[in-house]
């Protein structure tokens, strides 16, 4: 019962008026940076670090953590309503979320996203609280070969993303890989496709590409349709999910929590991977996978839960060992260092009031966020009533300001606009944008993990079957490929034929 005792002490720290207030500010700011495309949790935290200089450590970390997990709540809003990913973890939410908005179910999608986020977030904290040291040691065992195996599975699953046929998805994956290759090769320093342009040395940023291809592309397509776009009228009753939608969401929410929590332990862009894996898993488990991409609630519930669970477990290596495995925990760690607290393996035992205060505040924060976000659903959906000729320039402006605010780079603005045209053209040609974006994120990490493994083993491929995790996952990805081939060539059952003819 030590845990309960510790948690009780934690709540005593977290429930002081000041700490609840700071938690609220963090969650509010997190929701805002999550909603605004461009500014993500990373910039959101970094911007507020100087504001914490006068605070005590516990209050500071409570507020900064609030920004971090709060951003995962806000990220879904623009994805669902406007087809612009609010931050990187919400790319897959665009696929079905935006289609739900077109059908007038945007409110329900937002509601489920908030609800799933709350469950994923809260269960994630339970895991963090009970298992932090064990899981942190497990995460350290995860070296380049294991990482490569996980990404390989993800990569095989990429092919089944999107509503189009495999042959419409493949070119987008290849294009994504190509764009992801640009920049300095992190392992040899060779320049790839940079053409001497210094802004390209670090590669093409994810934010301008995603906002351009999704956001600007969407705007261009919409203006072409008509400036007086039909307004998605929503009555209050329709904001709430129907009974069927709620029932359909339970499975994805719990599976999303599991996937998100495990994937969150991995280094790097774990949120993106978590939401993407959850989406493809739901699509595989669905009775009618072909309906994905036309507005299934499962495609919102799963990923939006997974990224919240991932954001909790991504804090485990940082809190239990003092090793930040992702960019946002790294910034939080530096905030702690500035306050003279050095997170490390002894952090939890030496600074229990900070650790347990933070844990308790995260429970409170998740409740604050769900209370904050549910009424906002009505407000956000009302934004869609704004005439499109007014909404359109505002979205454009937000995309431009959001991109510029991250690196103060005009070059990224041209990337944004360039990929806006790209998104428009490929949407007209009926290609999906999501596989392109995800390939661009997964490709370079996959390559890096593969080559790091070989560098470690001095070129011997045996490194890939030395660990049981690696071997299992590589076999799994092989099986997935074979299964896909089998499904494509097997004789179709009578009912499937009937279904196809019926369409």
């Amino acid at each position, binding site marked *: 019962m030590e845990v309960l005792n510790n948690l009780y002490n934690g709540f005593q720290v977290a429930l002081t008026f000041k700490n609840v207030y700071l938690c609220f500010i963090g969650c509010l700011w997190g929701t805002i940076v999550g909603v605004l495309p461009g500014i993500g949790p*990373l*910039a959101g*935290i*970094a*911007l507020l*670090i*100087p504001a914490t*200089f006068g605070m005590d450590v516990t209050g500071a970390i409570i507020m900064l953590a609030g920004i971090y997990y709060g951003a995962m709540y806000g990220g879904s809003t623009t994805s669902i309503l406007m087809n612009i990913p609010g931050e990187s973890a919400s790319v897959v939410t665009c696929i079905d979320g935006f289609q739900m908005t077109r059908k007038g179910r945007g409110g329900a999608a937002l509601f489920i996203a908030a609800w799933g986020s709350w469950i994923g977030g809260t269960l994630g904290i339970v895991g963090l609280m009970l298992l932090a040291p064990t899981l942190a040691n497990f*995460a*350290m*065992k*995860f*070296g*380049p070969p294991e990482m490569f195996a996980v990404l390989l599975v993800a990569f095989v699953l990429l092919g089944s993303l999107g509503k189009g046929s495999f042959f419409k998805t493949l070119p987008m994956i290849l294009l994504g890989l190509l764009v992801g290759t640009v920049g*300095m090769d*992190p*392992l*040899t*320093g*060779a320049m790839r496709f940079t053409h*001497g342009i*210094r*802004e390209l*040395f*670090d590669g093409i940023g994810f934010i301008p590409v995603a906002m351009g291809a999704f956001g600007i592309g969407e705007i261009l397509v919409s203006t072409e349709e008509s400036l007086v776009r039909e307004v998605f009228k929503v009555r209050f009753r329709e904001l709430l999910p129907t009974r069927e939608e709620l029932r359909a969401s339970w499975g994805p929410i719990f599976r999303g929590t599991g996937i998100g929590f495990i994937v969150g332990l991995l*280094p*790097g862009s774990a949120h993106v991977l978590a939401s993407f894996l959850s989406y493809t898993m739901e699509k595989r488990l669905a009775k009618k996978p072909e309906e994905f991409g036309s507005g299934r609630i499962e495609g919102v519930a799963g990923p939006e839960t997974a990224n919240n669970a991932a954001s909790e477990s991504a804090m485990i*290596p940082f809190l239990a*060992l*003092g*090793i*930040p*495995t*992702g*960019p946002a*925990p*790294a*910034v939080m*760690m*530096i905030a702690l*260092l*500035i*306050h*003279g607290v*050095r*997170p*490390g*393996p*002894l*952090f939890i035992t030496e600074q229990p009031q900070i650790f347990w205060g933070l844990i308790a505040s995260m429970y409170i924060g998740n409740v604050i966020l769900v209370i904050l976000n549910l009424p906002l659903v009505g407000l956000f959906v009302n934004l869609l009533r704004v005439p499109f000729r007014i909404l359109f320039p505002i979205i454009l402006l937000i995309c431009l300001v959001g991109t510029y605010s991250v*690196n*103060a*780079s005009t070059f990224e603005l041209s990337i944004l606009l360039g990929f806006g045209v790209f998104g428009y053209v490929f949407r007209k040609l009926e290609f999906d944008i999501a596989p392109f974006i995800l390939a661009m994120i997964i490709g370079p990490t996959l390559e*890096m993990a593969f080559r*790091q493994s070989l*560098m*470690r083993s*001095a070129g011997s491929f045996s490194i890939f079957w030395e660990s049981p995790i690696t071997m299992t996952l590589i076999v799994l990805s092989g099986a997935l490929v074979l299964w896909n081939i089998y499904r494509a060539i097997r004789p179709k059952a009578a009912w499937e034929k009937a279904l196809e003819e019926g369409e």
Partner: protein
Amino acid sequence: MRYPFKLAVVVGMLFWMVSGVSLAADYPTKPITLINPMPPGGTLDLQARSWASIAEKHLGQPVVVVNKPGATGMVGAVAGAQAAPDGYTLTVASVNFTNAVEWEIANGRKPPFTYDDFVYLGSFTMSPTLVIVPFDSPFKTLQEFMAAAKAKPGQLSYCSGGLYGMSHLPIEIFAKATGLKFRHVPYSGGGPCLSAVVGKHVDSAFQYPPTTIPLAQGNKLRILAVAGARRLKSLPGIPCFKELGIDAEYYGWVGIAAPKNTPKNIVEKLREVTKKVAEDKTFIEAIEKPGDEVYYLHGDDVLKHIQKEAKVIAEIDRELAKTATK
């Protein structure tokens, strides 16, 4: 009037120069921008922000930090070098300047800026790296580690937070000074590299004190030596390279620079402020709490230090560039 626009520009410039001179007397009269060529949230960023918040008090004007990351700091450095030399745009200078410039030269490219594009106002840290191995590694001392590396050249591996960066070059300098050979596995960032050492995916690394010391205290890794000429206050029991007879030095230093041609009196004023900040109690606390040490260098000495380290880095980079293109 054939060139009305050009004439207007010239006249405007004249006025601007005159006004610049008059402004220099009672500098500063408006907020100062401090360009940080590194992304927000890193150690360097926070040290720069601490500097800015203390310098404000001495300057009587706000100092606003603007992050302009890209191309390992070159984008921001170029912006800083090309800014108007009026003392209202300063740049965070660091060892990354030298890393980037020498790497460009080693690869046969013209560096986008040179060390002489700046006048240095002073630096305030000079951190050595620590030689670390996993906690249950067989190596208890640096000598044992070196003996093993000598017995199996190119077999022991190390990780870095990025190619040609602040945690890659110190090992290469060490390897060159001792004639040893190691296998390099680059990671993207200091955190992932530390986790590779703790998880025993590599045999060693050279990393900076703030993140490393707590892990050693928690028995997750072992510190063998300080890769520099002096011991650290926070690690009195760990020997430094100089004592062990190894001549390999590389420091992560951070300082402030202004564009060249900045008026003399402004440079003097800023140098004075930089020194005052380095002696400020709050500033020292902000640097030392995370485990770093304040180490002040006068502006002229910063340039001397850069020239010294540039020679060492240039030699290393030339060899690395050769093997990379092979």
